[in-house]
């Protein structure tokens, strides 16, 4: 399936490329016209290992999955050699050591075949054009930072202050509670949160409900918003105000596994 005009790269080694160990096994089974439900495991193991050796000779990197399958094949082979009653971990139901592998191959073959039929459909439908699709909004409608007025914030603060326990006893605070320290604490708290790094405004005051603490926390919040460490948003007008940790400029969110998968 060469694209017209798309000249192939100057040097291209044509080798059957297998999508993985199951693909290779299916190829060997087809090539040797083997009954998949009665695989001669010695033959197929030898063929499989030969192929891995060839890949190594050609300096192709052999993915770990191929090696895991080699181990599986050798294990099945050894279990086949044992008399039935001595096979380990096998309940005496006459289970064939090859059974699990056969099931995997059969299932994989089904999806491999389904993939070719999807490909046929795509071949037809890729020539079909529709009106350009507007990108669906990626986030629910949100009132952005700029649209939260100071009035909204002060209203939220008032609500918090109303819940401050009545301080009939005079408070002698020895500790020096600074706005700067509280700023650090807020950022650290948000950074400890799993994705999304968000906190409801009133949750900010959960830990320390003293009036002075509430005020200092509020000032720290204003400062953090001002220097763009935090953003504020409201899902709806008059709704709860949400604190959002804004990524520091230039910081890469590179990570491995699922995180990397979802970047972008």
């Amino acid at each position, binding site marked *: *399936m060469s694209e017209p005009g798309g000249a192939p790269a100057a040097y291209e080694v044509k080798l059957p490329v297998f*999508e*993985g*160990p*199951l*693909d290779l096994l299916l190829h060997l089974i087809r090539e040797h016209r083997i009954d*998949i439900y009665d695989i001669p495991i010695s033959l197929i193991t030898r063929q499989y290992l030969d192929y891995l050796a060839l890949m190594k000779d050609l300096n192709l990197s052999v*993915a770990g*999955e191929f090696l895991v*399958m080699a181990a599986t094949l050798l294990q099945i082979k050894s279990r086949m050699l044992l008399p039935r009653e001595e096979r380990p971990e096998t309940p005496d139901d006459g289970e064939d050591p090859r059974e699990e592998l056969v099931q*995997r191959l*059969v*299932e*994989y*073959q*089904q*999806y*491999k*075949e*389904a*993939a*070719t*039929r*999807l*490909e*046929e*459909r*795509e071949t*037809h*439908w*890729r*020539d*079909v*054009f*529709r*009106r*350009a*699709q*507007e990108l*669906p*909004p*990626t*986030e*629910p409608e949100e009132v952005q930072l700029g649209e939260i007025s100071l009035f909204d914030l002060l209203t939220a603060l008032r609500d918090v202050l109303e819940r401050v326990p009545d301080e009939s006893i005079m408070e002698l605070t020895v500790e020096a509670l600074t706005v700067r320290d509280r700023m650090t604490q807020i950022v650290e708290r948000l950074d400890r949160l799993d*994705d*999304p790094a968000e906190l409801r405004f009133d949750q900010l005051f959960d830990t320390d409900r003293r009036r002075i603490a509430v005020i200092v926390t509020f000032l720290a919040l204003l400062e953090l918003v001002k220097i763009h460490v935090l953003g504020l948003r409201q899902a709806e007008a008059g709704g709860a105000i949400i604190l959002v940790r804004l990524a520091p400029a230039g910081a890469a*969110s590179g990570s491995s*596994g*699922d*995180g*990397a*998968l*979802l*970047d*972008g």
Partner: protein
Amino acid sequence: MDDVELRPIVEALLFVATEPLSLDRLRDLLDGVERSRLSAAIDDLREAYRRGNHGLAIVEVGGGYEMVTVGEAAPWIRKMAATKSAPRLSKPALETLAIVAYKQPLTRPEIEAIRGVDVAGVVKTLMDRRLVKIVGRKDVAGRPMMFGTTKEFLQAFGLKDLSDLPTLRDFAEIARASDPLAEPPDAAVASGEPDDVVVEVTDVIVDDPAALPEPRS
């Protein structure tokens, strides 16, 4: 509104719409005109376009009807738009997409168990092309993400909905039908082969992208 008035309005809506219009949506737009009348109007239009040697066609995909261009016009449309067609999906991508389509919702390790290889990169490609999306999290330790197909997937492959997917063939059938073109996909569906998987997945279409958790950015 009688049928003579209805037909051009439906046609105009299909022309302007940027995504498939379902009968329900049309009924809402047209103040409750019965589905049967809408359906008849669309059938009329489809037939008229088919008969009349037109460059447009009305197709049923992605849970509704949409107006699309005919395949014969594709080279000229590409020339006009100065675009090449999107690169074809690779074999690994198609295999992964097939597994997601038939078995959704499922997690990445579940896909890998079937394919026998790591699929992280392929899943990312499929998500970038908006064919696959996160549809939720599995309620097990670690709450792994579960993947499913999108409406764009249905459109790209000309499927009405997930039950419109070709029935999975069993191994013996695949061995017999070495030529995949020997049997048109629709015939396989019509023959009504028993297949649990296809029936299962019809329940899990999530049509509203906004209802889903956003990927981390």
